[in-house]
């Protein structure tokens, strides 16, 4: 499944990084601690978080993540969008909270 298909099936907002929408999604990781994501997320995962700081982009790039989903209607900061567009790592958004969204994403990816 590609990031684009996840966007369509989950009704997500695409804030930035459209270049990366064709990337393959290999799983998901939910965490708000960037140090934890650096240590434990795996390549190709979609990262679900409420952190909007531009450091999320550096971590996503470092770990080769497929995309980032911001929950609860949160929006990325401007410099986050700029890095996302440069690196082609999509920043997506949902109005759902972390628990609900992660549950639905898990079901989608594992079916």
């Amino acid at each position, binding site marked *: 499944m590609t990031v684009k298909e996840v966007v369509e099936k989950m009704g997500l907002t695409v804030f930035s990084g459209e270049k990366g929408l064709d990337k393959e999604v290999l799983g998901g990781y939910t965490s*708000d*601690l*960037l*140090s934890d*994501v650096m240590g434990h997320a795996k390549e190709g995962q979609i990262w679900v978080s409420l*952190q909007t700081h531009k*450091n999320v982009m550096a971590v996503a790039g470092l770990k080769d993540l497929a995309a980032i989903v911001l929950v609860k209607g949160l929006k990325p*900061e401007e410099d986050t969008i700029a890095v996302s567009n440069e690196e082609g790592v999509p920043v997506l958004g949902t109005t759902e909270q972390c628990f609900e969204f992660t549950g639905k994403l898990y079901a989608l990816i594992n079916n």
Partner: protein
Amino acid sequence: MVIPFRGDLHNHTFLSPCGDIEMTPRFIINTAKERGYTIIGISDHNSTRQCEEIYHLGQEEGVLVLCGSEICTKEEVHCLAFVDGFYKLGQLQEYLTKYLPPIPNIPDKFGYQFWVNREEEIVGEEEFLLISALEQSIDEVEKFVHSLGGIFIPAHIDKSKYSVLSQLGFIPFDLEVDSLEVSKRCDLQSFVAENKYLTRYNYIHSSDAHYPEDFAKTACDFYLESLSFSEIKKALRGEDGRYVKIL
């Protein structure tokens, strides 16, 4: 010529919900003086309201009190912020009040949030929970503190909770810090050796005292020409021959 002044910039008082009832103005200044500290930072969580009384008491006893707060940013990164003079302290307090979420404190669960005078009489109470995160990013807090000419120091960066490294993975490259703080038990040399990009920063270590038994037991020597806010800021930044030595 620079001479050393002993200091510890990170101390909580009774005002912090987690601060011990004995962390009063008189205790702090008397103990600092007894142990040869001439610089004491007062950094309660998201509030500056206990600073002024301790500052005045410090003036009488020859201890320079740096007035400020340990601010919790929206990423839940703890940062020390200090400003010079009561006008700017008022501006810092207004900023904290504006962006602290209005979540009422429950003293039975979190602890009391009173500030006191030198006679240890209660002067006021912070109504909202001080250990919440401010609705401001670390970058916004840094810019605001520096707009007041203040000192901005990410706190206990070696810790796995509430530190810039735990919350944001690494220090944002464009974040203007005056120094970085490590906790009192941190082996700074090996910490920096494991994180090579951190060698370009200046460091302090502090007690982060919440209890009397931890107070004035962790020190840095500030090498200054005279005892003032601006000299301390230069030492933190390593400017004009001023510097900080971790003891």
